[in-house]
Structures are given as C-alpha cells and as structure tokens.
C-alpha cells in the first residue's frame, strides 16, 4: 500500500494500552508474549495485558495500519514458528511520535504549574 500522509491527529489521544503496545514494538518486531513481558516490565507490573485482549487490540491496530505482521524473524535457534511478530508501520511511527509530543506538552504544562510545585515542596 503506498504510504500517504494521513491526519494522525484523529487517532489521538491513544488508549494507554495501545500506547504501551506501540512503544513495545517501536524498537523492532516483537511477538505477542514478548509484548506482554515488555509492557509489564516498563510499567513496573502496573499494566498487564491478557492474550485474548492483546490479540484483539493487535488486530485493531493492524486494521488501522499502525502495525503490521512482520516477515522479519530472528535466527532460527531463537524462533518458534507459532509466534507471530508485529512491527510498527511508518504511519504507526507518526502516530506514536505525535502522541509522545502531545504527552510532552502536557508534562511541560504540568511542570510549569505552580500548584504542582507546591505539592512537591
């Protein structure tokens, strides 16, 4: 499919679980179980994804063209033919980037807020 820039703003904000999945596959293709592990680790065990829900989301993201099932597989020794690998698409990267920038802006505002400074003090 030829990649044409689409309005990524429509997809924002991302659901927290979606954001975590996109982040997990940002550094390279991962299979389902590894996505779960990665998310669990990054969030200190706060966000746990369960398989049926995860694959439901993965298919939705695939439909929205944010990720795609990847043909790139690791070396045969580490591989398991039952595993399905997912990678971020260009569109997905744009959406993730936009979301991170959106969050950054929010954090920036939050830091500047006097009220929060008081709480920290």
């Amino acid at each position: 499919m030829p990649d044409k820039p689409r309005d990524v703003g429509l997809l924002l904000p991302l659901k927290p679980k979606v954001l975590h999945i996109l982040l997990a596959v940002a550094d390279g293709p991962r299979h389902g179980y590894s996505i779960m592990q990665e998310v669990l680790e990054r969030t200190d065990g706060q966000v746990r994804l369960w398989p049926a829900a995860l694959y439901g989301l993965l298919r939705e993201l695939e439909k929205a063209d944010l990720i795609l099932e990847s043909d790139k597989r690791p070396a045969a020794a580490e591989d398991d033919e039952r595993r399905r690998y997912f990678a971020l698409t260009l569109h997905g990267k744009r959406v993730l980037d936009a979301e991170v920038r959106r969050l950054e802006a929010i954090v920036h505002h939050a830091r500047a807020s006097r009220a929060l400074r008081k709480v920290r003090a």
Partner: protein
Amino acid sequence: MTSDRRAIREDGKRMLADARARGRVHLVMTWFALLWDLVFVGARHDLAQALRSVVRAPAVTLGISLLLGLGVAATTTLFAFVDAALLRPLPYDEPDRLVMMFESNVSQDRLREGASPGNILDWLDRNDAFDAITAMMTVSATLRAGDGGTPVAGVHVTRGFFDVYRRQPLLGRTFDAREFEGAASITSRQASSGEPVIVLSHHLWQSLGADPHLVGRTVSVEGREWSVIGVMPEDFAVPDAKAAFWAPWDMQTSYRGPRFPQGSPRDARFLRVVGRMKTGMSIEGAEARMQTLASGIATEHPETNAGWGVRLVPLADEIARTSRLELLLVFAAMFCLLLLLCANVASLAIARGVARAREIAIRLALGARGTRVTRQLIAESVLSAIVTIVIALLLTTWWVNAALSIAPDGIPRMHEVAMNARVATFAAVLALLVTAIGNAVPTFRASRTPIAGALKDGVAVSASTSGRLRGGLVVAEIAAAVMLLVGAGLLARTFAELRRVDVGFETSNLLVLRITPDAARYRTGAQTSDYYRRVLTSLREVPAIESVAAVTSLPMSTIGSEFTRPYWPEHAGPERKTDASIRMATPGYFGTLGLPVIAGREFSDGDEADAPRVVVINQKLASSAWGNENPIGRNLILDYQRGPYPYQVVGVVRDDRHDGPRSEPVPEIFIPHAQNPYLVLNVIARTTMDPMAVAQAARASALGVDPDQPVHSVTTMEQLLGDAVQLDRFAMLLITLFAVGGLMTAAGGVYALLAYTVVQRRREIALRMALGASPRRIAGSIVMESLAFAVAGGTIGMIGAAAGSRFARTLLFGVAPQDPATLVTAAVVLFLVVVAASWLPARRAALIDPGHAMRI
C-alpha cells in the same frame, strides 16, 4: 484468525507456566484472569456487533422482546397459580401419605359425605391402616380485640391433628394429649374441663400485632379467655386459608347428656376427616381395610350405616379438586396463545431475515467465515433472550401480585402463590425457549441463504418454502382468536343472564347485618330470643327502615349455618325419608325478604317457644312430599334435635335460588326462631332508600341494644348477589383478556404475512400498475387476500368453538353453546380486525412506484 487463537493459547500456557513457578495462588488467579479474558474480551467483538445491530434497529428487537416478554409473563403468572395448586407438594411431612376420608353410599348417590362422629370413633379404635386420623370442623367465632368483636374462622380439631399433619409451629408448641381431654367445642355453652388453649394461624397472629410474646398470653374468643400456646407457619392452611386458629376438641364431650342418649351420632355426616396412612400402605390397600371396617359397623348399626362405606382421596387431589380442570384449561389456553405469539414473532423474524439476507450474503461474499456470521447471530439471540427474560421477570412480578388481588376466593392454595425461585426459573426458561423458537431458528435459516440469490435486488429467498407454512400459521391464529371470541361472548352473555335471573325475592333496597352474640353472655335460648327481639324492635325505629327480620342462613350469603336434616311426610312413613335444608327465621322474615307466601301464613309472634311446633316449607318440598295436595295443616316428621318429631306445616313460600343465581331450588324447612333460638343470625332490613345510606344508623341502633355484641359484615343483598357471581365475572374477564390477546396475535400475523407478501410481490405489483391497474384495485387485491385467511380461519374457529363449547356447558347459564347472536358478533369482530390489519400493507402496495418494474 486461527493462528491468533493458537498464539493466544500458547501465550496463555506460557503465562500459566510463569504463574506456577510463583506459587499456587498466582496460578489460580492467572487461570481466572485468562478465563475472564477469553470469555469477555474474546467474545466482546460478537456482542458488540450484536449491540450495534440492536441500536441500529432498536424498535424491532425491543418490540419482539416486549411481545415475547408479555406472552411469557402472562403464561408464568398462570403457572404460579398452577404450580401452587397442582404441582408443588403439600407443605407437610410425607404428604403422599395424607388422605381425605369420606363416607360414601353408592345406592343413595352420596359419594363424598363428611364423616359422622360415632363412626369416626370406631375408625379410631379399630383401624389398622392409619398412623393417625383427625376430624375437624370450622365454626364462625367472635374474637374480641380492642374495639369490639371480629368474626374469625375457628377450627375444632381432634386428638390426632398434629400427628396427621406433622408440622412444627413457628412459635411455641402444639397441643399435648392432656389438652384434648374433655375439651368442649368453641361455641358450646359447656365449659371445658381443662384450661382452654389455642394455636393461632400466621395471619391471625399478624393481625394481632405479630408479637412473639403473644405465646403464653390469652386472647378472648366467644367470651372466653384462651391461652395461646403456639403460632403456625404462614403456609399452614388447614382446612383452608381462612382458618384463624385451631382448638382441641374432645368429640365425646359434645355428645354427652340427655340430648344424645345414643352417644355420638352416626347419621350426622358433617366432619372433615384426614388420615395419615401407615408407611408403605397404598391408598387402595387402606381403602380396602376401611371398607371391611365400615361393613362391620354397618352390620352393628344397620339403621344408620346400611349401605355406607369409606372412600379415600389423596389430600393433594382433594385440595385441587374444585379447580384442577379450570386451571389446566386456562393454562393450556395461555400456552397455545404463547405458541401462536412465537409463530408470529418467527414470521416477523423470517421477514426480517430475508431483509438481512443481503447483508449476510455480502459479508459471506467478502470472505467472512460461516462460523463468524453464526457467532454474531448467536450473540444477537443471546442479547434478545436477556432482554426478554428481564421484561418477563419484571412483568411477572407485577402481574402475580395483581392477579392475587383480583382472583376470586376458592382457588386452592392461593396463599402459597408468590413470585418465588420456581416461578422465576420457569419464566427464564420459557423466555429462552420462546426466543429460540421465535428468533434464533428463523435467523439461522436466513444465515444459510445462498449468496448469489440474495445479492440480486429484491429477490426474497426463503419465500417458497415458508410461505405455505406461514399462511397456515395465520389461519391457525385466526381460528384460535375466533374460538376465544366466541368463548368471551358466551361468558359475557352468561354473566348478563346471571345478573338478570329472578332469584325468587326482591334483591333491591335490602340491608344485611350479621350479629354474632357471645355464647357466654346469652347462655339460654330465652336470653337469645329476648336479645334479638330487642334488636329487631330497635332497628324498626330507624328512619327509612320499613321492616326487619332475621334468619340463620340467608340466600346468596356464604356465611351462616347451612345444614340439612332428614324428614318425611307423616302419612308416608320413614321409608320416604329425604333431606331438607333447615333454617330458623323470625316473624316477618318472608315479607321483609320479599319472598311470596303462596299458601297459609308467615311466622307470627304467636309462634313462641312453648307454642305448637310449626314450620313453613318451600314449593319444592311441598310438591315432593304432597304432590298437588294442599300441605297446609298437614304434619311432617323432622329428625332434628331430640329425634323425629311432628311439625305442622302452616305456610308454603316460593322457591328461591339460595346459593346464587346458578343454583337450583332445594327443599327447605323454616322453623320459628323462638322455637329453636340460634345464636348467630343474619338480620335483614327492607329500606325505602339506598340501603348503604341507612347502614351506619342501623348498625348503631343494633349496637345500642348491647354494645358488646359484634354487629358486622354490614352489606346489601345486591352486593351479596354480586359476590355470588364473582367467579363468573372473573371467568368472563379472563377469557375476554385472552380473546383480546388472541385477536391481537391474529391481527399481527395477518399484518406480518401481508407486509411480507407486498415486499415480495412489489415488482409484480409495479408491473401491473405500469400496465394500468389502479392503486385501488391493487389495495383491494391485498385486502381480499386477508379475507381469504379470515374465511378459512373463521370457519375452522367456528367449528372448534362448536366442539369446544360442549365442554364449557357447565360454565354457561341461560345461553345456548351455539348462540347465533354470539357467533355472528364474533364473525363481525374478526372480519373488522382482519381488514384493519391488512389496511397498512394494502396502502403500501397501492403506493408502489410503477417505475420499479423497469429496473431489473
């Protein structure tokens, strides 16, 4: 998708393996989480799609669920009654061993008489088939609590009572053997030898304030203080739900003394007897043993017992006896209506399925798997079932309570009817079932539509196979509606006739009061006579009261002592012995009631206690005893009180329908009240204006004579007459409701079928219009089609009604089962409804654009 499923399974396994390493608690929790994840997240997709389709067409889905829910709720409401009356076991220990015991005499065609005290005592002594036997008798007694007296139903029970029923009290205890010893009857003027004790029913206890400390205190009944030893549970209703309390009774105590030289009588068969059979005893075996015993008693006492045997009936059957058939008929009718409703909904669903066939075909053509479509359809059906169940449960809860408040007395075990787990389960299962029939099956049929056919514009797919079936269903619905309509018409006419029938006396402007004096205060007959004389005199002075009198058993009134005694005309001898109803009346009774005296005279003040014994008889008795001869001045022998004595006939009155408009006159003997001063009387007053306007003044006047004596149940004869036809009114309302439901079902069926036909034939119709047919003509042809159904269904329905009304003959009164006016009315109503139902589809057909024919 399959590969996803495999991946989900693999990942799940891996998570379980991790969890196992971290301990058992983690493992279990992971199991649950995975299960939750699978069931609720995995299936969410289908449910979400189903929800979307509901939201897209909420009217159709909700409409169908509402229709089915209504049907299920109506059926379940009836089920609640059927369940309580017929299906649920009686609330006693091992209820199968309980039997009702009757005395029966085949040659006299008296098969279900109560038992006589003398015979019961022999049964108790000599039987070897029963663990326990008890006799009971209900009397009307006055409970004094706070402000004046309340009439309540008290039940005398003999020694075996709680051994037969084996029910633990809710509070306190039941009677012990000592308490039965020498216990006199509740209303008797004798005193019991021991301290009088009673056990209260739940409802009496509630009405006394539901104080748990009432046990051990006393209540005042019939002018005596009784100590309350226990309270029974709510569902303990023996012999019926009216029973307010139970008191021990030693039968022999009541039949001692000079009035009963023979001891307990054997020919007064009036006691209700229930026995608990020995374990392992069959009812046939027990009956055979009791027959042997009865024939032994008959040999010893041929004058009273010749020809008399014993008949046993399972207690559950006996309780349900009076209305088993009616209940089942009504329930069956409702069930048929529900099935028709299902058929209608199925019909609608098929039509809708055809409309959806394109949607489904497109999805299949685009590569959706069959299972995927099926799963979505299942999800839709589940959703629709859930909505139906919720609607059905809500409506049932509401309707069961509504039905309880309008249902007539006399439906067995009605106090046990409630919205309980059984009833709710029935509603839920039935709702699932009707959803499956009415919704799921047709939808699945639609899912198997051939893709190529469905994708073509406007081609109805499942038309040819189901068209005839659906036509048949509509004819069946119309037939059922016609039968119900005819039934409703016949019962409505019956009811009108019942209200019009001449009961024999003047029912308007007649006030009725009931007085239950205290037996302890008015101990002698002379005192009682004097009390009533003063009450009647006082009432005569109330303005707008013309005349006043009193009687033991008033026509149309269910309260009062109603009994029969044997008599024979003196010239004929005791071979001509038959029974007549005995009533005690004060002077002026017939004049006040408006019951014409045909020959002789009415009672006068001269018919006093020590005057010659006289009676007034009715026409029925006069003609059966003396034929065409004049009975005035003749003697009849009445076996009453101290044995057979002659009484002189001084008057003959017209027959009346004593037990309600349906009842036939029975032989009646009236005795002057002064010559047999009964304590409890119905007082009637003929008024010159609306009797209820005089009621307060009349009651106050009667209370003025002795404020302690309860004057209650103030009502009018018109009201009593209304109560007497209460059951008929209920039957009429019920079947009218059914008829309306049936008509609506039929109309819905006609509508659904025609609407569908119009959609199916729209190209043909467009073509005809393009060729010059007028819209009017097209509409006419659709209406004609509906009339064809009406004629077919109507004919079948009329035949069915003619066949069925033979069974309903007992319900009818004053109208023939094939009453032409009713049949014609039913036909006209049906015709109008069917035409109305076809109007919308016909209009839609007439509005079809002829240009439609050009598109291929």
